[in-house]
Each structure stands twice: as C-alpha cells, then as structure tokens.
C-alpha cells in the first residue's frame, strides 16, 4: 500500500533539511510548529544540537493560533526574540500546520521584516516532503536573498553545497561547512562543488547569477570513505572483493555515484544506484532507480540478481531472504545513524 511502512521509520523530512542548512549560519531559526516538529528536528535530525547552541525556536503554535491564523502573534514574538538575540537574519521554516492552514509565507516575511529590523527568509516546507527538498529550498532561498553582489573571484576558493549532516551522514568537515559570510560572498568562489543533489539548484542559481561553474562530486570518498572509522583505516572499498560482482548501492545520489565509480574501477560486473531521495536526471544512469515504497526496494532486490547490497542496515529487514552480501553504509536521513557505526555484515 502506498505510504504504508512496516519496517522503516519515516525518513528525515524537508523541515529537517532546511534547518540543517541554516543551523550554523547565525540566524534566528523559527520552526512554525506546535513543538513536536522542533523536537524531531533538533532532537533527532540535528547531530550538532547536543554540542553547539544555536538559536532554533519553535513558534509554539496552539490550536487557536492555527485556527485564527494569528500570524501577527508569531511576528510579535519573533520581533521580541530578535530584539534580545544578536543574529544575521531570521528564518521561518514551515511544517504541516502552516501547510494545512495555508500560511502566506510571502506576507509573513514582509510583516516580520517590518517589525524585526532583520532580513527575514521563509522556507515553505511542509513536513511531507523529504529532507533534501527542504535543504534545496533553504540553499536557494539563502543565496537568492543574500548573495546579490558580484565580487572579484578569489583563486582557489571553493563553495561546497549539499555538505550538511543529513546529506553527508556525518558532521561536515570544517572546510566544507558553510558560513553566513560565505553565503553573502558566494560570488568570490572560483567554483562550486555539489556533494549532494540538495545543492544542485543553488549551484545553478549561482551559475546563472555570477557565472560560477559547478562540479558534482563526493570528495569524502577516497580521502577516507564513510566507513573509515569503523574499519581501522581500511576502507569499505578495500574490504570487499568487488571483481565480477553485481552490486546495488542505495544512498543519496552523488555519494552513490561516487561509490559506483570506485566499485567499477575494482572490477564489479554491474552496479545499480538507487535512492529514496532526489534523483537529478543529469546524474542518473540507465537502470538507476528512484525508490518510494518499501515494496519498491523489495522488488528491486529480489528481481535484480545482485550479489552485494550496499546501503543503510535498516533496509535489510525488508529483504531478509536475500542471501548475498550486505555492506552497511548508514544513511543518516534513513536511520538516524551517522557513518561512524558502519560495518560489513555478510
């Protein structure tokens, strides 16, 4: 049945993706919810939350706020917080509640900017899309709003897009992290490196606006692949005898493609990439699969004639009769596990 999950918990939603992008930019981030969404975002989907304080708030909506459409109350509370907290900007992130009541984000932004003395952006996430949709919206909104000035290009400056904990399934390395200053000075970048599909739309925006070229790649692979920590320096790619194998890789599309290239270079007979998330046509090869339901995955595995499956270990419950090799590659937006817990199971 469409939408029914018997084995997997729901994946990270779009609102988590948006907050993941905004988290370290020094803004006031207001999740427009009753509280539960903020708890899910911060308490589960944001691994930096326990170690780094950030000005993330819940709007604390109550039933009458939603029924009466009290945007003015939200704006007054945001203005009060903006008065007390130093911030670069304010962002309002949508959830199912404003989606249901049809909140006018454009009007909300204008009202808030009049009251707050801060630039305000709104991300119209709904809680019903997946994380990468929200992350993509946040990247686009940020660069569209704040990267407006054409500045001289600085040699060697690379801007990484898609490098957030949900896309990388790890805390981003310092050199890949995004700061508010880098957003504002985006036109100084010599090139943009897109490490996940969530960064693609913003990369195209920067290309259109400033002529900044972009590449798509996953530099973390090879520099210490995602399983490095669990394998005492041995990489996942070195541990498995790939030659002649038929392999299914399930991950975010850019990472999966990079793994495919590496496995092919080690002699794999056939490698299919599948993803539960965005599948950009320009990054898709023939035979690649966009998964939506548990049944899709089950059918793919049992009819795909694979020797090896590479993906988040929570997926293996769906295909418990698969008798090939499974290689654990945790995907944070799927299971909430970071890559440091990776391992190989046969």
């Amino acid at each position, binding site marked *: 049945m469409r*939408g*029914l999950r018997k084995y997997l918990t*729901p994946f990270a939603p779009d609102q988590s993706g948006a907050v993941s992008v905004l988290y370290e930019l020094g803004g006031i981030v207001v999740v427009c919810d009753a509280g539960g969404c903020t*708890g899910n975002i*911060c308490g*589960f989907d944001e691994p930096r*939350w326990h170690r780094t304080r950030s000005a993330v708030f819940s709007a604390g909506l109550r039933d009458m706020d939603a029924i009466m459409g009290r945007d003015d109350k939200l704006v007054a509370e945001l203005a009060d917080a903006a008065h007390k*907290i130093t911030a670069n900007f304010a962002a309002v992130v949508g959830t199912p509640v404003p989606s*249901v009541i049809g909140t006018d984000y454009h009007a909300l932004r204008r009202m808030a900017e009049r009251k707050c003395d801060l630039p305000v952006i709104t991300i119209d996430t709904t809680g*019903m899309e997946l994380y990468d949709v929200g992350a993509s919206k946040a990247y686009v909104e940020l660069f569209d709003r704040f990267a407006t000035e054409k500045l001289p290009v600085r040699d060697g400056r690379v801007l990484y897009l898609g490098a957030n904990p949900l896309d990388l399934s790890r805390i981003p390395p310092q050199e890949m992290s995004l700061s508010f200053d880098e957003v504002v000075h985006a036109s100084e970048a010599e090139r943009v490196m897109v490490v996940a599909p969530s960064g693609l739309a913003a990369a195209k925006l920067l290309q259109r606006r400033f002529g900044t070229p972009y590449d798509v790649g996953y530099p973390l692979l090879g520099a210490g692949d995602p399983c490095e920590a669990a394998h005492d320096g041995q990489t996942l790619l070195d541990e498995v005898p790939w030659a002649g194998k038929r392999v299914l890789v399930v991950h975010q599309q850019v990472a999966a493609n990079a793994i495919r290239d590496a496995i092919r270079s080690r002699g794999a007979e056939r490698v299919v990439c599948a993803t539960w998330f965005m599948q950009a046509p320009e990054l898709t090869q023939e035979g690649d699969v966009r998964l939506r339901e548990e049944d899709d995955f089950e059918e793919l595995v049992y009819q795909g004639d694979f020797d090896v499956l590479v993906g988040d270990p929570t997926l293996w419950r769906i295909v418990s009769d698969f008798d090939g090799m499974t290689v654990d590659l945790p995907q944070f937006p799927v299971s909430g596990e970071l890559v440091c817990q990776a391992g190989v199971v046969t």
Partner: protein
Amino acid sequence: MGHAACYFTAGELATRGMQHLPDELVSNRHLIYSSPATLAFNSPGAEGFGVKRAGLAIPGSVMLLVAPGCCGRNTSLVSNMPAYKDRFFYLNMAETDIVTGRHLKKIPQAVEEVVDCLAQRPSLVMICITCVDALLGTDMERVCRRAEERVGLPVRPCYMYALTREGRRPPMVHVRQSLYSLLEPRKKRPTSVNVLGFFAPLVEGCELYGYLRGMGVKAIREVSTCKDFDEFQRMAEANFNLVLHPEARFAAADLQERLGIPSIELTRLYQLDRIRTQYQALGQVLGQTFDDASDYAAAQDAVDAFARHMPQAAFSVGECLNADAFELALALVRYGFVVREVFGTVQAENFVFLRRLAELSPHTRVYSNMEPTMVYYDASDCPVDVCLGKDAGWYHPEAACLAWNEDVQPYGYAGVRLLFEALLRLTSAAASGEGRAQA
C-alpha cells in the same frame, strides 16, 4: 541589547502573584527556545513516556501512526527498545491526503495489512494521529470502528495533538482515557485496587504497596505490570483507583462514570511531613491507620546522611525529572540545603510551592527553559554543587548531575529515601575524583 538569560527570583514572583507572571515565564507569549533542556516539552515522545509509548501500554498492542512523515521521524528512538520492536507502523500522509482526506479510507486496509504481517495477532491496534488531523477535524472514532469491523480486533484512536498541549485535555490526558476506555464491566472485588497515572511501576519497596496490602488488598494493578490483555481487563474489578498523576484524572472520572470505580488522587511529594499528612488523609478516607514510622525514619535517615556528607549543598533543580521542580526545591530548602536556581514552568498547581519557597529562599532564581534568552545561559553566573534533572545538568556540564528521570517512578517515603541515597552515591563518586558524576 543584553546577552544574559532572563530570570526572576522566587521573591519577585511571589510578590507578583500567579495572575501577573512576567511574559518570559508564560510559554504562549514568546517563541520556544529549543535546547536539549526543552526536549521533554518539544518532543515528549523522545524521552520518557510520550503519546507513542503510552499508547502501547496495553500488552500485545501495536500502533499505526497516520501522519506526515515528520511526526514519526524520531520513533526509531523508541522502536529500537526491545519492548517496542515490531510494534510501530506508519501510514505516511501526502499533501493530496490533506486536501482529499483519502488517507482515512486507507486506514482500515492499512490496519489489516499490519495485522496480517505480524506473526502473532495483536491485542489492540492504536491509531495515532497528529496536528494535521486536529485541524482537519477528523472523526477518528468512526474510522476506528470501520477498522475494527475489518480486523475483528479493538482499534482505538490516540491523539498526538501538540497543538492542544495546553488545552483542557492535552494529548497525555487523552491517551490515558483512550487506554482505560478498553476496560469492560466486571464484577467488583473489594480486594482489588488500581494505581493509575504512570506507565511504569512505582519503585521497588514503595511503602504504598505495603499499606494497601496491610488493609487487605490482594491485587494492586498497574497498566505497566499487566502481563497480557486479560490481566489488563481485570483492572475493571477494582474497588477503587488511586490516581498518582493529575493527567490520569479524566480517565479516572470516566471509569467512575462508566464502571462505577471511585478514585482518590494523591500527589507526589518530597517533603516528608507533607507525605505523612497525605497518608493520614488517605487513611481517613479508607478508614485505616497506616503505620509509617519506620518508612518515615528511613527516609529521614537518608536525608540526614546526605546532609552530613554535603551540608549546605547548593542545588540547581530542573524540570526534566520525576518531581515537580518547585516542590522538590522547596523540600531541599526545608531540609537545609541551598537551591540557587530552578528551571521550571510556573503553573497554578505549583505556585503554592513557589510562594512557600519565596518565604524561605527569596533569592532563588527561576528560569524558564523555553524562554529565548536561555541561548545565553552561562553556568558560571550561578555555580552549583549538584544538578537535579537532565535539563539542569545540561546547563551545568561541570557539576555533578542526578537525572532522576527513570521510567520506574519514585513515590512517597521510598522516593525521598532513594533520591538522597542516590545523591550520596553521586557526590561521593565526584569527591573521590571519578570525574563528572552523572546518574
């Protein structure tokens, strides 16, 4: 622009009175700051018993969460616990569902598919719905009846409506009503009593059990200790219900009306003299006298032992723990300790404790975990020896911290005794140089 966390002293608040609390301490007058200290507010299901765990209190039950994906995201925190393995299922809603309401038609079939995929037939299917259906005005009772007809099992709704958390019947009240609505009429047994309120049992050795047995009660039932659905149904035999948590008040009223089981409400307290008074009052209602001398003395001994170990210990008291933060702070002050700050939510029910605290310790600071300026909270501004509660411990990473938030519930004299025994162990470990003490 000041960069300090906002607080008010207990003295200031007592002077203002409950009707004139500052906006900073009223949660619906400001944005809600999100930190690990507010997780229990923002996501009650993430820790302890929220609607999801509570909804599965009936042995052998399973839950179908019908909601946008975001609502079920953190459920793997719970479903990874052995007791909840293979008990959570999801029907993810899309935007089209909201517009057309078609998800409601899918629920009976989804329930059937869930029941069919299980090796053992469940005792009950809970359908959990969230804010979206609250706004859509979904009649889930009707949908559940249709699902019941389809699978031949009880199917009940539970409402994880965060939007209504400060309403008259918030989600944790409603889930209790929903659970106990399953009880069918049975012949009363005068030797049976139910303990309502918690989803885990009281601490082992709690004197309340002994007092009840001493008056001839043979069966003391709690939902958390029922081994199966049949045993749960035997809760309908009870002569009376003891309500230990106010969120069970409505469920108890339902049981009185529907099954004729009266109830008596008790409060969890940490002040020994108040506990004694409450037991005396209970005894009067039941026509009994409880001999509590040894239990009282054991608890007092534990308090005294800790006081000898750390006289004048300075506490930070949070609200993410098994206590009312203000009542616990008051108890500590009355035992002779110092309470420098309380992280708490001031409400009508606990203002009486706050007022008394103000008389004894007017300079105790009161913070709201949820207030926006808590992003600037600086522990060095208010040094303490011991933190009580997970939230207080988060603000003071260097201080010894007793989380005191286990599922098993401290209560009565035993609760006081165990608290101070734990504090003694904790601070002894810290004193012996074992690094930051946490428990």
